[in-house]
């Protein structure tokens, strides 16, 4: 079953690329858009997907690798179920984002760019989420939590843990 799903995704990616190629004489310039799409489909950019893109788009794999590693947005490893982004923008920094980061690291037992062993959380830094008025803020998946204290964020994380346990049991 797993494989057929993957094949579906590959097919979708192929279609995305061929749609682009139909619209432009410079399809290779859409590499970043294609990588966005691929990450969207597969959760991260693995080597097989990048190889596939290389062949379809006729772009050297080394180039794709160079691009994928250049941009922080692209993830090269499987990600946890929830992505926690600690905003380290200036406003958050002066309001103590550093302490929030330390607390989260301690709580999860992982560093930036890492994923917890249970596969539940991945930890990232963000440079300004544009919610400076609520500083310090943390984004979990696409929800923003603002005006945090170390205690609040720990509670929020345990909340996620709990609801996950529940959904598992349920």
């Amino acid at each position: 079953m797993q494989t057929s799903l993957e094949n579906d995704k590959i097919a979708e990616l192929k279609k995305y690329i061929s749609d682009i190629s139909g619209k432009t004489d410079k399809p290779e310039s859409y590499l970043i858009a294609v990588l966005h799409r691929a990450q969207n489909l597969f959760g991260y950019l693995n080597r097989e997907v990048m190889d596939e893109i290389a062949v379809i788009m006729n772009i050297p794999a080394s180039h794709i690798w160079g691009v994928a590693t250049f941009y922080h947005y692209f993830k090269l490893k499987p990600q946890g179920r929830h992505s926690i982004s600690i905003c380290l923008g200036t406003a958050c920094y002066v309001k103590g984002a550093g302490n929030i980061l330390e607390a989260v690291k301690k709580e999860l037992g992982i560093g930036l760019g890492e994923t917890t062993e249970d596969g539940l959380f991945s930890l990232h830094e963000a440079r300004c989420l544009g919610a400076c008025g609520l500083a310090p803020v943390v984004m979990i998946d696409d929800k923003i939590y603002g005006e945090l204290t170390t205690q609040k964020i720990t509670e929020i994380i345990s909340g996620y843990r709990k609801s996950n346990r529940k959904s598992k049991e349920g």
Partner: protein
Amino acid sequence: MEKKTIAIYINDKPYRVEPEQTIMQAADKLGFHIPRLCYHPKLSIEGACRVCIVQVEGVKNYVASCAYPVSDGMKIHTNTQEIRRARRDIVELILDNHPEDCHTCERDGNCELQRLAYSMGIRKRHFEGEKKNYDKDLSSPAVVRDPDKCILCGRCVRICSEIQKVNALRQAYRGFKTVVMPAYNMPFTESVCTTCGQCINVCPTASFVEKNYTQELFEKLSDKSLIKVAQVAPSVRAAIGEAFGIPPGTAKEKETAAALKRMGFDYVFDTQFSADLTIMEEASEFLERLQGKGKLPMITSCSSAWMKCMEQFYPDLIDNISTCKSPMSMMGSLLKTYFPEKIKTAPGKIFSVAVMCCTAKKYEAQRPELKINGLNGVDIVVTTREAAWMIKSAGIDFLNIKGEEFDHPLGLSSGAGAIFGTTGGVMEAAIRTAYELYTGETLLDIEVNDLRGLKGIKEGKLVMDGKEVRVAVAHGLGNACDLLDIVRKEPDKYHFIEIMGCPGGCVGGGGQPYADANSIPLDEDCLRLRAKALYDLDRSRTIRRSHENPDIQRVYKEFLGRPLSEISHKILHTHYSKKEPKGIIPRGLVRAR
């Protein structure tokens, strides 16, 4: 007509220069050598190292002279105390993130960074801190990558993408963590790297070097139970002198043979001999194909980097490739068959060494399909650089050595064998023989000037008995790819194509001596002079056509029978297969950054 000029001032002195050039170009012509590192005249402008900065009045920041155009009235300062200090600090910053192992580094004494640091007068260090720390990639039989020594000038990336168009290398990650690597940081040997070694040629440090076999070879040379046999590629003799301070352009043929014998080789043979042999087989194969037996255009197969490139990127053209082994491997085959028979010994006793201008030959020597009765035709390949080092290390006075002839029965070569080492040479040699085999008449005007020189793709026409034969020649994998893209579109355009993987052909191989302090790697003048040394050798020979070589005639008489005979096919020909290393892709777009 007088050329338009503009006025510029360098260090307060007025000069008139042509417009539309960079400050560096103008300064070079006026005798101001601005220090530089990432710049290479054949590659796109990177502007990354910032070593070539100068001050321009009215411009707030320093400008990179390699990239900044001159303009009328521009006042440039190349050597103020301020700019000297800035440059020195920049080079210091590079050193701060570079291993301090000059004494044990392969490029000690031959390193651009070392020379630069010396010329900057760096005597103290101020900013030491964390250094990069990565593993060396020793996976490839030919090229070693050591990211710790990389200073990120990007020359390797540019030559690999712009000149060779292989795109094996790219900068990955960013900032302080930037590393030059193949896709997915996979081992070199699994990547699309063709092992051409041009990255080594242009690397200013020892971040890229060939896999060094010199110690292993010294071991074997002292093994009394083996019969040690060397073969020497044509372009080795055209360049080895440079490693000893002799200016480019002088062939050191007999000196090389003499030095290798003194080093401990029992026999020193000539790859030019097997080049002649290659011509016999290849010309015959071509004529067969011309008569309808096999695909046209036929494409030469001497260049190992090109073979890997073709198998990866042009597998659709496999049937167009000549089945002939390269001269090195033909020699290897004879060394494990004909030669032991001749001296009445077991093939396994023969230790076969090839001295090559080429790093890719190290890769070729390991190809399993080239084995002869289970033995490698060539056991070790050393480059011109390694050979020169061994000669020095063994205490042999190369500059004053008395030359010696190559040994028989595999040492005699024609002029045609000599020019194998330069672009167009294989085609020229093949024409000399093919014409005679086809028409039965001797080709008198044997110097084919259309196929000589450093133009990327050269074309020629030959009429044999009223039949027009269209030939083409490309050197450097990038040009080769361009030519083959034409072939893909117009399969009937040419009959015969010669391809050499390196710029200038083998004379520009990845194993040739490093540029000295006053020149740049792959300098075109240097390539031309090396080629000239080979053309001079050709002219100096009384025998200039492969089929006239008496040793060749003898080997056919005694062993092979005739070209394309059964035994020829068995030991001198090979086959190719589509290669798909992991992460490989059809050759794609080429971009500099």
